């Protein structure tokens, strides 16, 4: 949970937000980019799915472009927090559990190309 990646530290991780601009709603922009650099960014995508209250707060599914080497779950939380400072669900709240491949993972888990990250708020039960 250290700020090893400079653009993720502080209040406004501008570079991180540049990456996250390649979200589904903005994919047309990414598709128009002819240069190789943007195309490479577009190809390193991870999907993030949100359930329950988190789905209402962040959208049911978003895609983020990963920097080289991927992001950790903790870094994704911080990007979400910066992007949604007023969200009803706090992405940094440990009760919002992260899950990859149907397994709960901790914040140090690095997300690779093509992986799906799911965030689960506390269960309601049936």
């Amino acid at each position: 949970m250290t700020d090893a990646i400079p653009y993720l530290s502080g209040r406004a991780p501008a570079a991180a937000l540049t990456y996250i601009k390649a979200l589904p709603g903005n994919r047309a922009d990414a598709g128009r980019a002819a240069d190789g650099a943007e195309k490479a960014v577009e190809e390193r995508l991870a999907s993030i799915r949100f359930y329950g209250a988190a789905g209402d707060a962040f959208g049911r599914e978003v895609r983020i472009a990963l920097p080289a080497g991927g992001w950790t779950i903790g870094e994704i939380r911080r990007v979400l927090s910066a992007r949604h400072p007023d969200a009803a669900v706090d992405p940094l709240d440990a009760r919002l559990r992260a899950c990859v491949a149907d397994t709960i993972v901790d914040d140090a888990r690095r997300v690779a190309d093509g992986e799906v990250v799911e965030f689960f708020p506390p269960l309601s039960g049936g």
Partner: protein
Amino acid sequence: MSVAADVRLAEAPFLPEQELAAFVASLGGDDGAVASFVGLARPRSAAGAPVERLFLDHHPRLTPRSLEDIARDARARFDVSAVRVVHRCGEVAPRAPIVFVAAASRHRRAAFDAADYLMDRLKTDAFFWKREDGPAGAAWIEPTAADRDALARWS
């Protein structure tokens, strides 16, 4: 003796009477008791506000798995020959059935206990997120202290 469990996540409304009839019809010859329970979506929230609909968000794999785990635990814990769990997901109208459980056994106590246990586990451990939508807005809800106390009876 083989022990059967039938678990279904229902995306559409279901009829509890049909579930019960099918369950009874599926039983073997040694059963002497069937206990069942039907849960209905409440038209009012715990605070008394009108609820226009209930939304049960679910996970495509982990929610069915949680229902199967709970049914398996009930089978292992009680002397039952069969259990059935049907649970709605998606949008549920007020007063519509949201859950059906049934258990069968040679004698009634095991069937009653298994159905009771199934419901207590489902209320806290089933993999759902529940939202009540009403005129005043939407509210996500979590298990109550009463739900947790009910579950604690089995520990």
